Every structure is written in C-alpha cells, then in structure tokens.
C-alpha cells in the first residue's frame, strides 16, 4: 500500500481506462500529409528549415525555434515539402496558423542515423546535446524542452529524478501501455537521464490502478539489476499525476509558488519522454512518433497507437474503425485538461497524448448545465490540490480585478478542473481563471510595449534637440566665417584702393 504524503484535495474520478488499456500499441500507416504548425503551444515561432519543393527524408530537421527554449522538429516520413498553408492547429483558440506540410511519398526513406553508441561512454554534455538534436520535449503535455531540464547548472543541486507514470486523467492509457510493453527500454532511458544528471536516486510514481504496469516495471528492475530505481505506488486520485502533486506525493517536498521542481532538487520526466530519450541515445532515433490514446465512447475501436507527429487526427480515427455516430465533441488531451477541436483535420503534436471522441455520455454536464450564482459553499476550495480559494479568485476574475486574482495565487492554479466538477452552480471556474491569466499576460505585453515606446520617444526627443543645437552651431560658424570674409574683402578692397 501507499506509504507517503497525502495529496490535499483532488477527486476520485471514474477512469474509463478499460476502453483502451488492454490492447497493445498498434503501428499506424503513413498518412498522405504530415502537418506541422510553425508555432508551438508556448508561443515560440518555428522557422522552416526545409524549402518548398524540397524532398525531405524521415528524421530530417525541417523546422526549429530559436532562443533558450529552442527545439527542433523532424520530418516523420519522407516526402515533398509543400508550400506553407494556413491550417487549423492543435490550439484551444480554434484559429488557423501557418503550417509546414509534407506530402509523403510512402517510401518512408530514412536519414542516415548515427551509429548507436554505448550511453556509458557519453558525457553529460553529449547526452544533453543528443537529446536536443533529437527534438525531445516533455511528452506529458507541457512540451518543455527536455535538454534544458537535464542540463546541469551551478545554481541548483539535483538529488532525485522522478519519473511520472501516474496517468491520472480519465481515458488516457498511453503511459500505462508504454510501461507494460517497454519496461526495460524505460529503465535504460532512466539510466541515461541519471547519467546526464550525475545522480543515483530515481523514483517512478505509478498509480495504484495500473497493476500490470507496476508488475512489468518491477520485474524489469529485478532482471536488469538497476536496484537504485524505486517504484512507488500512488493513490489513484486526480490530479496525482500533476508534476508538482506527484513530487509532493513521492518526496514530501513542495515546489515553491512561481518556482520549479529544480528549486527543490528534483527533475521530473514523463514515461513517454524517458522512452524518447532511450530511442534517441541508445537507438539513435529522433523524436518523430509518440504513443497516442485514441478513445472515447464515440469511436469504434479505442486503442493506443504509435502515431507520427503531424498525422491528421482523421487518419488515426479511420484506423480505429471510424466514428460510431454523431459526436458531441472532439477533445485533444484528457477530459479534464484537454481542449475541444473544431474538426479532425488537425495534426497531432508532440504534446498530444490523447484524442477523445466524446459523445453526450461524457460531456452533457458541463455543456448543458445552466450557470447559477456562486453560493460560497467552499466545495471548490476543499478539492483544490494547490490549496487555493477558487471562489475568491472567481470573484475577482468576474469583476476584472486581475491583479487581485494574482495575489490569491492565480498563477499557481494548474487548471486541473476539479473545482469545475464539484461546483453545484456549474460555474466554469477554470475558464474564468484562464481568461484572467490571458488578461494579465496581455497587460504585461502592453506594459513592455509602452516602456519601449517611451524609450524610443525619449531618445528621438534628445536626438532632435541635439540636431537642433548642432544646426544652430553650424549656422553660427558659417555666419562667423561670412562676417570674417566680408571684413577681409572690405579690408583687402580698402588696401586695393590704397595701393594705386
């Protein structure tokens, strides 16, 4: 049984995991088109590195973003790069954005891959560089570049690596399947990460309702002899798989508000990310595919599949036997933290862990219920896993007092949606919080722009003053020269007159 710290709040949600967890991960056919948005979810713009009309090979770099958090994107199959198009992308706005499109040729021709090397011969810097070159980002959903997380720095001392195998969202089973089918690969991936971080301590957190995964990992640990890796079973409470929540459950350490797990000596990686690290370092393969759970009562054959990044959702759906009737909503991500998509032409991204085809069975409550006034019952506060007062933040958010929201911990909200579920007045609290966060970000951007405009205005002002002074100076000098010349000419003409 679980011996550790207890999560405050949270919900005991129905898992619906049996729809997809018992089937092994299927491979998918090469889609006709691969769609890559040239902007990621954190708003970084990617620059296309492959030209229009160029033939790209599987695993070739086709786009990259600059800056500290820059990542690389690779083609998931061989084909021709079409002209960039504005397509619907995996984004809650439902807006179109510029996308790089690869028309596949079905040959699936690979880039020459590096000779696999023994990871024990690699230095930490080599591992980080390879992880970066392989385009690996957190596959749990946040898409934070993994190389940055594992690059040692002088400020923080890391002592524990936590592997997140607590898939707490209902319906999603991709990490569960990965652990059942690839336990020894995951353990090798962990060894690589431990080497990069130069530490020995690793804890894998798995939810108690995944007995097969727990058994598979434990067996693999026994066989491999990697005894420093511990498996800890955590209660199946949503959101036990949230990064901060899992760290607290396993170590009792609390990530500071506005801080990061590194501040408390922890690096946390998702199981899928560890698998990608294994593939990159041990196999020399870049990140071009991931496991996606395609599930929900609206689909004929729910299952997990190895899907190429960029595959349109409709291709995955048709390989799952198609829709079984009219659907209420198409959700990317989980039922709790995912977002609705306008249609199924959207390509999957590195962050896509689940496609949920929801029927009226799954989504009636939130969409049909009428919003009633808050009765201040406090239910939301008792389920909040971050100890916030959602009713209070809601109050300020509704009134547009976004600064006040911040003082009540708006940015500590992980948008898990527990408060939405329990609210007897059906208030969409999380949406209020997201709207407030948007407003705060907008205000920050406006303030930055205003500061810049002020600077430019002031510099222009000083420049104009300087120019005026310089012009006056020039005129004065010229006038003086003129007066001097006139005097000279007068005196010389006087001399001339004197001479004869």
């Amino acid at each position, binding site marked *: 049984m679980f011996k550790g710290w207890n999560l405050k709040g949270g919900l005991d949600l129905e898992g619906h995991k049996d729809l997809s967890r018992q089937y092994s991960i299927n491979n998918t056919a090469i889609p006709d088109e691969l769609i890559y948005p040239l902007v990621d979810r954190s708003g970084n713009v990617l620059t296309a590195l492959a030209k229009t009309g160029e033939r790209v090979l599987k695993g070739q770099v086709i786009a990259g973003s600059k800056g500290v958090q820059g990542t690389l994107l690779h083609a998931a199959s061989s084909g021709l790069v079409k002209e960039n198009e504005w397509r619907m992308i995996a984004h809650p706005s439902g807006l179109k954005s510029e996308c790089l499109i690869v028309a596949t040729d079905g040959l699936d021709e690979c880039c020459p891959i590096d000779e696999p090397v023994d990871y024990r011969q690699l230095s930490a810097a080599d591992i980080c560089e390879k992880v970066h070159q392989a385009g690996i980002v957190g596959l749990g959903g946040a898409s934070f570049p993994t190389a940055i997380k594992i690059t040692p720095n002088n400020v923080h001392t890391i002592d524990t690596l936590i592997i997140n195998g607590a898939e707490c969202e209902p319906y999603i089973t991709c990490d569960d399947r990965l652990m059942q089918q690839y336990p020894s690969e995951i353990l090798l991936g962990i060894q690589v990460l431990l080497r990069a971080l130069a530490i020995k301590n690793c804890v894998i957190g798995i939810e108690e309702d995944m007995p097969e995964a727990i058994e598979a990992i434990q067996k693999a640990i026994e066989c491999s002899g990697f005894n420093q890796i511990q498996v800890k079973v955590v209660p199946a409470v949503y959101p036990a798989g949230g990064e901060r929540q899992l760290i607290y459950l396993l170590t009792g350490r609390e990530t500071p508000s506005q801080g990061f797990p590194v501040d408390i000596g922890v690096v946390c990686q998702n199981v899928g990310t560890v698998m990608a690290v294994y593939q990159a370092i041990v196999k020399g393969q870049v990140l071009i595919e991931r496991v996606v759970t395609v599930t929900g009562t609206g689909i004929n054959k729910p299952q997990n599949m190895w899907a190429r990044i960029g595959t349109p959702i409709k291709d995955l759906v048709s390989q799952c036997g198609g829709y079984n009737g009219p659907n209420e909503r198409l959700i990317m991500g989980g039922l709790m933290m995912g977002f609705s998509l306008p249609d199924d032409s959207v390509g999957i991204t590195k962050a896509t862990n689940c496609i949920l085809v929801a029927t009226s069975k799954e989504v009636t409550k939130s969409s049909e219920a009428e919003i009633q006034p808050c009765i201040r019952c406090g239910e939301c506060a008792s389920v909040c896993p971050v100890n916030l007062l959602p009713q209070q933040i809601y109050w300020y958010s509704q009134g547009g007092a976004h600064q006040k929201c911040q003082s009540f911990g708006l940015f500590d909200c992980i948008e898990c949606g527990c408060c939405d579920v329990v609210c007897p007045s059906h208030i969409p609290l999380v949406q209020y919080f997201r709207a407030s966060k948007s407003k705060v970000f907008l205000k920050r951007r406006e303030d930055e722009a205003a500061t810049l*405009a002020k600077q430019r205005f002031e510099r222009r002002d000083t420049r104009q003053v300087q120019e005026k002074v310089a012009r006056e100076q020039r005129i004065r000098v010229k006038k003086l020269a003129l007066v001097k010349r006139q005097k000279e000419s007068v005196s010389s003409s006087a001399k001339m007159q004197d001479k004869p």
Partner: protein
Amino acid sequence: MLWICLLFAILGVILGYAAFRFKVEGDPLVVDIEALLPQTQCGQCGFPGCKPYAEAIAQGKADINQCPPGGEVGVKALADLLGLDAKPLNESFGIEKEKKVAVIVEADCIGCTLCIQACPVDAILGAAKYMHTVIASECTGCDLCVEPCPVDCIVMTAIKPSVLNWQWPKPIPNRH
C-alpha cells in the same frame, strides 16, 4: 536660550544638507502619472506626447479625461492615483478605439520621408526616394503618419487575431 538656538542651528544645517544630498530629480508625481499613460505619443490630448500631458496634469493645466487611447480604464487609474472622481472621456479629444497598426502600401510609396519625420517613436524605416516600411512591433497606432503622407498610402489596419495574441474568453453568465 543659547542651547535652543544652537540646537536649531544644527538641525537647520542637517536639513539643508539633506535637501541638497537627497534631492529628487524631476517631479515624482509626473513619473507616476506618466506610468499610467499608454505611451502612444499620439498627441490627441493636445500635448506633444505622454510626458508633456503628465506634466500638464500634475500642474493642474489639463484634465484627466483627455487620453482616448488610455480609455475609461486609464481615466479611472488616473483618478485613483490623484484622489479625484473618475469621469467619462472628453470626446472632443477623440473616442476610444481598438488599437491598430500602420501599414504602408509599398507599391504606392514615393519615398518622401514625411511619415518618418512624423512618427513619434521612430517606427518607420526608409530613406529619401526609397520605399518606407513600418516596424509593426514598434508601432503604437498613433495615426500621426497618416496625415502627412502626400499619396495617402498609409492605412491603419486592425491587428489580426492569431494563436500568438489569442485570449481565453471570459464565460458568459446566463442569469435569469
């Protein structure tokens, strides 16, 4: 008596020194007011920029409701700072509009540099007899370049919604 005089003299010296040593550059009130203005530098308030307007407010020469880009929110913030009652925007200075960005129709530009001289934040690039262009990210949408253009090739365009500037909408409460 003598002691008291002496004490006062010493304190006087200290005060005099403090006034000299800790002198505040500029008017702190002007700085606070200016921080609340949108820095559009559009001059709609009747002053040549946000700072001159801030100075005029501090001296009581201008009212707080003369800044259309700041809008009602801006007026309210100024009222809070100065302890005054908020009032509606004075429409004789203009009305609150959505922020736009100037775009030069490059095919029509004759390269006269008049817009470059008019831009208060140096957001227009170009040289005489060469095409000009607006640096969109630096443009404050002040409209000042539109008027001087002899060929009317500057259009104020709405900022296009994209995933980069998109905002989560606030839920619509359905009260009965």
